[in-house]
Structures are given as C-alpha cells and as structure tokens.
C-alpha cells in the first residue's frame, strides 16, 4: 500500500518535472516516452480510472507496463461463461424435455418453430439427419453440431434473440433437452443435467477434419499459370440474369429522401404530403403538422415521441413501425393505439393476446403502459420475450412514439 502511494507521488513529481522541461524547451523534441513502469502507473486523475483503481484495493499488479488492474473473481465469473466440449465451465443444474417444450414455445418458437423446425429464414434446429453429403444439406443441432457444449453455451449467452442472458441455467438445461428431443436424440421423459451432459451422443461428432487445404489444395494451385491459348473454346454456361435475385438499388433513393427531409427548406414544403417519406427525422415533423386534423386523438408531443424513438431501439429487433412496416418476429406496430389486442392480420399471436382482443381489450395508454412495464404479468403466455421497460418515463415516451404512427 505504502509502495503504491510512493509510486503515485513519484509519478506526480515526474510529470511535474516533464512539464517543466516542456516549458523550458518547448521547441525541442521532449516527447520521449518514460521507460520505467513506475512512472507509467501514475496519472490517475481521470475519475474513471480512479473508479477502477478503487474497485480493487487488495491485489497488486506489476506486469510489464503496470497498466490495468487485477480482475476480481466475481468479475471473471460474470464474464467467463464459455463452456468447452469436455464440460469445463458447465454450471450445475438440470432441466427436463417437458419443461423445455413449454419454455421453447414461449421463448424460441416464434423464430425457430414449435418443433425447432425453423420459421422463414430463421435457423432450423432439428432435422437434417444424414443430409450432409446431399446436394442441399440441412445443418441443425442434430445433424451437424459436433458438441452439446456449444448448444448450451450459445443458448445461455446469446438467446433469446433480443433478450440474451435472461434465462436461468435450469431453463437453459430444459431448452437444450427439448432441442435434443426435437432431434430424436433423447426420449420425452429425459432430464438433462450436469452429470449426464457428456453422455449425450452427438451424431456428427466425428464429422469434422482440421483444415487440410495446405495438402489438398495448395500444391495443385501453386504451379506457374498458363498465359496464352489456355483452352480451346469458351462458352457461357450460366448467367446471373436468369436467376435475377439481385436486390433493387433503392437505398440511394432512400438516402436522397432523407437528405431532402432533413433539409429545413424541403421539410416545410413537403410536410403536408410527406407521408411516404421514411426518414426517421421526418416522422415527428409530419405528426406535428397533421395533428390539428386528427380529431379522435390528442396531439402528439414531438419531443416526447423523439425520446420514445430512442427507447424504441429496444423493440426494433422484433417490431417494425412506420412506412412499409411488416410483421417480423413481432407484429408491425402501425395504427397500434385504438386497435384490439392480437388483431394484426397474418401474425400468429399467443392465445392470450387473441382472447384479450376478442373480448374487447384495446391498446391505449393504459393497456400499453401495463403491458410494456411487465409483458408477462399483463398477458400471461404472450410470445413477446422482452422483459419489460423498467423506467416509467421510457414507457410513456415509447407510447407517445407509437401514437405518432397511430393516426
């Protein structure tokens, strides 16, 4: 302790000395780096650095430069979550296929399907056995993943999409058990736990070889290449235009619209007819200019809606709103305020939301606030995996933002 105090003072003196030198010889090169680590640990005037230093009163770190501080055991365990194929890092706990089925339905099925078969372009987690040598192999946890540790590790750290690290270890065990079940790798009464984890056979565990390009490819393609008359004839065998899957180049137009929209001159001239514009900045402007025409709803508070737009980032991974919004993981949120719960066509809601809607519940300030604060409490069984907005001010702001798309 006294040693580090000395170092600090020493460092301070050294800095002062350097400054003096700088003042005296301002036109000379005095930027040479201090070579002693002791000098380099000084300079903890930054409050952020002080906080880090304060968090660690006990262990000392010498190192080469003496930079950084010793990581505390609780910090290491908070971040060091990876699990190795031999089970290193696996937490204790357990989960059954049956529990997993329910959890999977609530948290995972919206993208991966009730039977882990995948929805749209989202990953399929089951099926595909014996297809790896086929023309179009289906790579799933069952058919392709070599280690069960990878599945547990990934679900635990990165799922559900948009609400990662929200599952308990037991829930992860259960979901992994259900994924195994959906691949016919375990029976329906199976319970996965830290003891039987390594006993599960993964069908493709022997399906991988270490990169062999150095032997299999490099010798073939390291010969002096032919320069002239390398082949007798050249025929076109395939054309991209036939498939025609190149996306349209609409982005440039969108950007041009945004440039127009953010230009004060063009906003004033276009605000009355700018409903087709997609630029985020125009949304609020448009609302303000049209609010006087809206009879059934109160004017939108543009500033609050702006704050809500920032909060809405949390929702964006699943919900679209605004021009051209479509159903994605969650339903689109255009014209949300005033409509019945669970009523967007083409979206598969939980039974709870549909029932609430058909029994007359409508999205308004009150119902939205209750739902957004604690979705699962307000609508038990909702598929929305989001945990809820903790701050009341965030709830109010995001509702205001959504109201701006509800007229």
């Amino acid at each position, binding site marked *: 302790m006294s040693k580090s105090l000395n170092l600090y003072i020493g460092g301070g003196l050294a800095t002062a000395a350097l400054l003096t030198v700088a003042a005296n010889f301002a036109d000379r090169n005095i930027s040479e780096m201090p070579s002693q680590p002791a000098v380099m640990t000084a300079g903890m005037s930054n409050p952020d650095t002080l906080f880090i230093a304060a968090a660690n009163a006990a262990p000392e770190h010498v190192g080469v430069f003496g930079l950084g501080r010793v990581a505390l055991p609780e910090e290491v365990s908070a971040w060091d979550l990876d699990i190795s194929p031999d089970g290193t890092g696996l937490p204790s706990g357990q989960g059954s296929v049956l529990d997993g089925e329910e959890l999977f339905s609530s948290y995972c099925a919206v993208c991966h399907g009730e039977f882990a078969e995948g929805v749209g372009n989202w990953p399929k987690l089951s099926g595909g056995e014996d297809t790896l040598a086929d023309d179009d192999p289906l790579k799933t946890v069952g058919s392709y993943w070599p280690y069960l540790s990878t599945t547990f590790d990934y679900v635990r750290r990165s799922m559900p999409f948009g609400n990662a690290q929200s599952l308990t270890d037991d829930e992860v065990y259960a979901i992994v058990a259900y994924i195994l079940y959906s691949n016919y790798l375990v029976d329906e009464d199976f319970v996965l736990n830290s003891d039987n984890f390594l006993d599960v056979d993964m069908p493709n565990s022997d399906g991988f070889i270490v990169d062999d390009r150095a032997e299999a490819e490099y010798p073939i393609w390291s010969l002096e290449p032919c320069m002239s008359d390398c082949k007798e004839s050249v025929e076109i*065998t395939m054309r991209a235009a036939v498939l025609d*899957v190149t996306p349209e180049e609409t982005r440039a137009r969108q950007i041009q619209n945004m440039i127009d929209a953010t230009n004060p001159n063009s906003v004033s001239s276009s605000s009355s007819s700018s409903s087709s514009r997609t630029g985020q900045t125009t949304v609020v402007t448009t609302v303000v200019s049209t609010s006087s025409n809206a009879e059934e709803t109160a004017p939108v508070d543009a500033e609050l809606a702006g704050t809500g737009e920032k909060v809405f980032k949390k929702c964006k991974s699943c919900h679209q709103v605004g021009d051209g919004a479509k159903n994605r993981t969650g339903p689109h949120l255009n014209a949300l305020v005033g409509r019945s719960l669970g009523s967007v066509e083409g979206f598969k809601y939980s039974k709870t939301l549909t029932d609430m809607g058909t029994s007359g519940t409508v999205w308004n300030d009150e119902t939205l606030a209750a739902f957004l604060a604690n979705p699962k409490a307000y609508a038990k069984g909702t598929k929305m995996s989001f945990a809820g907005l903790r701050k009341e001010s965030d709830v109010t702001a995001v509702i205001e933002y959504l109201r701006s798309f509800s007229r």
Partner: protein
Amino acid sequence: MSDSVKGPTTSRRQFLAGAASVGAGALAAGSAKAAGDPLITEVQDWASGLGDGVDEVPYGLPIEFESDVVRRNVPWLTADPISSINFTPIHALDGTITPQGCAFERHHSGAIEMRKQDYRLMINGLVDTPLVFSYDDLVRFPRENHVYFCECAANTGMEWAGAQLNGAQFTHGMIHNMEYSGVSLRTILQEAGLDAAGDLKDKWVYVEGADASSNGRSIPMEKALDDCLVAFAANGEALRKEHGYPVRLVVPGWEGNMWIKWLRRIEVTDAPVESREETSKYTDTQEDGTSRKWTWEMDAKSVVTSPSPQSPIKHGPGPLVITGLAWSGRGAIKRVDVSLDGGKNWHEARLAAPGDKMAVSRFYLDINWDGTDMLLQSRAIDDTGYVQPTKTQLRHVRGLNSIYHNNCIQTWWVKSSGEAENVEVS
C-alpha cells in the same frame, strides 16, 4: 493517349473513328457544339456565387451526387437485418483504403452503442494475473499502425452453386481494407503474463465480444502472439459503431468472423472452446459430408471491380481502364493477370503499388477497347506462389455444398453495349 495504354492495338485513326460514333450519345467533355459548351461559355452559378462556409459541415459526408455509393444488403439472404450482412460498394471505389462509412458490416445481434468510459477489456484464464483494462489504459500501451483487409468467410459464398448476383458489390463486397491503429495482442498477453500457460505451443486464446451475440472465437496462441492487433482506430479516426467501437480485434489475413468487435474478453485456454461460430458456422462441408474446421486463412483472391454489372462502360470503344482488387490472407499479392476472353489468354496487370502482406492491392489494365464482347476475369498470385483457382477447380476439390472460402475466379460478360453481367464460363 498515354504510352502506358496496352492491350489490343488499335490505330489512332480507328480509335478516333470509334470515339466519333459514340461521342454524341456519350456527351463527351469535348463535344464542342457550334456555340461551344455552355458549361464553358456561360458563367455558371458556382463561378459567380458563393459556396458553403467552413462552419457549415463540422464532419462531412460525401457530396450528394455520390449518394449511390453506399453499402447495400440482400434482404432474402438472412431472416432479419439485425443479424445480417451488407456489402461494400467496391464497384465504385478506387485506391485500396475502404472509407469506414461504406465498409461492409456483419452483426449477429446488431451494432451496439458503447461509450469509451463503459468499455472494459478482461484477460483471464491461463495467465499469471487476470486483468481488467479501461479504454484509457489501453491507449497507454505502445501502438502500431498496419493496413489489413478484413474479408468475411462467406464473401462470394452465394456464388458456389452458380452465378447469382449481378454486381461486384454483392459477389465480392464482404471485404474492406483499412489502416488500423492499436496495441499488439502480444503486448496485452505479456502484460498479464504467460508463465502460467506453460508450453505456449498447444495453447489457445478465446476472444469474445460484448454484444448480445457473444461472438467468440478460439485463436491458436502462435497467431495471437504473431500479428493480431487490439485496434481502436481505423483510417485515422475512431472505429465506427458498426465495426466495433470502441475496440475490435484485428486478425490479419484470417476470416472476418474472428475479428471480434466490441472486444471484451481474452481468455488463455489449453483447448479451443468450439463455440457456435467455429463449429456450426464457418466450417466447410465437403462433397462426402465431412467438414473442414479451423479454415482460418483467406486464400488469394481478386475481382475486376470495373467494368462490372454495376459499373458498365458508358463511353464506347477506345481507352478503357480495367481495374480491380486482389488480396491474400497468406501474404502479399505478387501479380494479377487479367483475361478478356474468359481465361483463354491472360495479360499481366499493373499493380498500383507493390503488394503488402494481408492488405488489398489495386490493379489496372489499360486497354483500347474495340467495342466487342469481353469475358473479363482476373487471377491473383500471392508471394507463396498460390494462383487463384477457377470455380471449376474449386468445385472439383470441395464439391458444391461449401458456403465459405469461395475464392474462385470471377467472370463478367461485358457486352458491346458496355453493360456487364455475372456469368460462368466453361
């Protein structure tokens, strides 16, 4: 006409005749009408009024006339744009450095926003002292600057089965090339001390990001101690959010997925973690159903960026600059050949500068185009002597079911109209 113009020789008379025939349509700069070019003969607004002051744009974007030079994505490719990729507009860029604002992005859980003061980097595992660094700590280590390319392993992956996408941006745009400033990973590892790791030969470094995808990859210790960089700046300024602000890992020559963004943890281990990204993804299934893993290096590759489907020839026959990019994850580009006839005959292109290790090279072939169809190809050769293979050669070894590491020779069919199309040839 410059002396450096090579290629099929056309007499000056023929060239002038050709130019005249398209001149009217092409609105060449010299299309002098009887009254002269009004852009010259009449006083233009910009020659009379005033432009923007220096306080107008504190940080500038490209002028609006370049608004089509942007990243683009392919919506059908992924389930959701948040876990997706977009493409660098390589067809419209020149030189070698990719501006950050249009350098491709690939996220697994979206581009997160993290302040420097909220940034922490942990190093743990088989080290003498597990450490935590703040951003301010990191920038106090001795720094290095290097130019490296970063290519997604899936670049050109959609072209395995056949010619699909019409544009160099879409077929080859999962690449960027930037100058990085940062601290060598070796320095960070040595700060924590590697005595506890014992024999370093069979040790690994597991690196992970701070975003919700927790993208993590295992890197052999040999590479970690060789040339990896813990980078905080690119092209002279802070990294962009989409590239991992404030800190990302740079793994020269190796697939982009390993260049962990928002780098938060470095763990020294005695075996690879076998994470999702190194087992279920970024592995290469061969014809017999077995899959290669740990295919880290990006093999030598090149593409003609112009002319190409998004960058057609608009000027008719005559002098034509054929240009493109070449790179190799195993060294420096030594030579690039260009074929105008689908690989029958090859011409050595001119490298704009001698190749640098694991950095993109720009090549040019200046020709006198006679206005007939071309089947344009380029072929990179790196300093290991590796020659970029054809698609047929690659398929012969790997089959049709690979996704990643497609470094085949690309063919553009340039028609007499100047338009180009992505094709495959025999």
